[in-house]
């Protein structure tokens, strides 16, 4: 078998022209394990230098998609392309792709430096020792672990091991860096730090990163584009803000951010704004982005932070009873109950004066929002 030659990538920051080139592509890719369809008819294009996330719950096919790019799984149907070449038949060791594993998969019998040098030593012709040492040193600096060369893997903390795993992958200057839930095992604070670092490193190296995660916050804060997946399919592709502001379905609205949902039927269509009649007989306004027609079933989605909560009734406001109050620092989350709509979650910014008490359990309060901030979506 002829092994295609992949020229080494220069590691300059990506320019606009590079960004427009397609670095990897899935064309009609389906993967079946026996009767189980893990990925169904995936069509996607990744651009050079992008930070991409595959977002979805476990079992949605995101890891399968990643493993097909890495070469650990072969598609049942369709084609995987990297840099314009079909790589379906290419073994993982012949692909210009590296992966950061969820459990890091560091070699326990090798030192930190030898772990990182592993990929370089496999290159043919083998680079000279000085070059390997040089690159290993640079990679360690990039992940801020300079001086840890001779440490043993089991002497490193979880966060440090994470960095070693990252260094071991980026040192090879891959066309694609695949990250399989790389931060899942870290505690919240460390995860936040690593997220920022991951983004910095990605910008610095200009390598296309593909992150698999079920953590919507992670996907939102890191990605240029997010591929939301469900049951083996991609349900929506967009920038984080796109997905958050214009979710195409109830599923996306629910998975990207949190939202209140009210089911009902379209009562009136008047321009962009439509009216939904809820099961409880209430009529609510919202942007009809799904272009539903009168009489169709719909679902109104309302983000908790779009709702104003107030002690006084205003025109068109709804009276509710406060059920619970959760102090979140800069915000307070209220869980309120409306007679017809049921439970509603409201996120209120902290009152400007310290010590202001806000609403307590059992208080009566009034909710209002603009029809522009509510979305009427196709129920699913």
């Amino acid at each position: 078998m002829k092994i295609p030659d992949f020229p080494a990538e220069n590691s300059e920051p990506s320019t606009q022209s590079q960004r427009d080139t397609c670095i990897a592509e899935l064309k009609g890719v389906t993967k079946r394990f026996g009767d189980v369809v893990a990925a169904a008819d995936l069509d996607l294009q990744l651009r050079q230098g992008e930070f991409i996330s595959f977002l979805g719950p476990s079992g949605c096919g995101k890891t399968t998609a990643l493993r097909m790019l890495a070469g650990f799984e072969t598609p049942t149907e369709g084609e995987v392309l990297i840099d314009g070449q079909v790589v379906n038949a290419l073994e993982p060791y012949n692909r210009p792709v590296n992966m950061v594993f969820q459990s890091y998969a560091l070699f326990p019998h090798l030192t930190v430096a030898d772990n990182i040098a592993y990929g370089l030593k496999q290159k043919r012709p083998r680079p000279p020792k000085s070059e390997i040492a040089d690159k290993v040193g640079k990679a360690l600096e990039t992940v801020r672990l300079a001086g840890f060369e001779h440490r043993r893997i089991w002497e490193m903390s979880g966060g440090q091991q994470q960095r070693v795993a990252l260094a071991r992958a980026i040192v090879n200057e891959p066309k694609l860096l695949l990250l399989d839930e790389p931060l899942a095992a870290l505690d919240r604070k460390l995860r936040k730090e690593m997220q920022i670092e991951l983004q910095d490193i990605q910008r610095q190296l200009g390598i296309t990163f593909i992150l698999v995660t079920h953590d919507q916050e992670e996907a939102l804060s890191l990605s240029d584009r997010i591929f939301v997946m469900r049951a083996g399919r991609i349900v929506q592709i967009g920038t984080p803000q796109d997905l958050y502001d214009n979710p195409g379905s109830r599923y996306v609205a629910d998975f990207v951010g949190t939202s209140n949902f009210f089911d009902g039927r379209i009562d009136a269509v008047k321009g962009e704004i439509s009216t939904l009649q809820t099961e409880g007989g209430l009529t609510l306004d919202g942007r009809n982005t799904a272009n539903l027609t009168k009489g169709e079933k719909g679902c109104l989605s309302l983000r908790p932070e779009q709702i104003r909560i107030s002690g006084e009734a205003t025109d068109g406001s709804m009276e509710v009873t406060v059920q619970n109050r959760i102090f979140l620092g800069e915000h307070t989350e209220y869980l309120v109950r409306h007679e017809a709509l049921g439970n509603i979650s409201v996120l209120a910014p902290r009152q400007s004066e310290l010590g202001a008490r806000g609403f307590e359990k059992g208080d009566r309060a009034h909710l209002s929002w603009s029809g522009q901030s509510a979305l009427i979506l196709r129920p699913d």
Partner: protein
Amino acid sequence: MTQRERNWLLVAPAGAWFLVMLVLPLSVVFIFSFGERGAAGGYVPAFTFEQYANLPARLTAFKNTMILAPLGTLAAMLIAYPLAYQLAVRTDPKWKNILLVLVIVPFWTSILIRSYAWIFLLGGRGIPALLGTFGIEGVRLIYTPFAVLIGIVYGYLPLMVFPIYVALDRLDNRLLEASSDLGARPLATFFKVTLPLSIPGVATGCMLVFILLMGEFLIPALLGGGKVFFVGNALVDLFLQSRNWAFGSAVAFTLIVIMLVTVTIYMRLIARLQTGRDDVSVM
């Protein structure tokens, strides 16, 4: 009861056992080795180094043991590794246990019976006769060092297979995927990841087999036919036949010292192999 007292209680049964069954007999052997043989055999108290001075009389037994035990260990390891690899890495999990049981099936009958079978197989009417039908005449197998080696490898193979199997079975598949992902072909992955990480299993198997082989006497007695004999056979002879307990004790004690030294050196080497490898290769 304090934690300390509880710890003592936990090791007390084993401690008592070792004291009675190991330390006491060994002390007896040590003391006897400086004694003299009685007129009618047995032991007469004395303090002489005569028995140790007489050791060269049994040099052949030491030589045979020191050559065939390591050789047998090596041969068993070379045969066991591919088998254990196949079982642990390549076999469908639902067949693993059945095949593992097959490995220990030979243990269901006594080694004595099985060695007798080998006497027939290696004897004139066995394999040499079969070779004769192909025109290869005059092959002599029984009562040679080679026959003893075959018997040893056959008898101790399961003891070698199991520790290696366990080490390979425990190997995290993701490490192999990581190696492949980093550009290593299957053969490179085997030598850089699989083999180094299975070394502890190999080391355990080799030590188990080697220690047992150093004390072996049944297989050389049956397949070596008095021509290829181990220190174990010399001891049987000295204690049971010629009833020279003092000399027997000296031989036994020498064997223990040789074993202690070999095993210590061996463990040091293994420890160095596991922690020192590749340490400075990058810099």
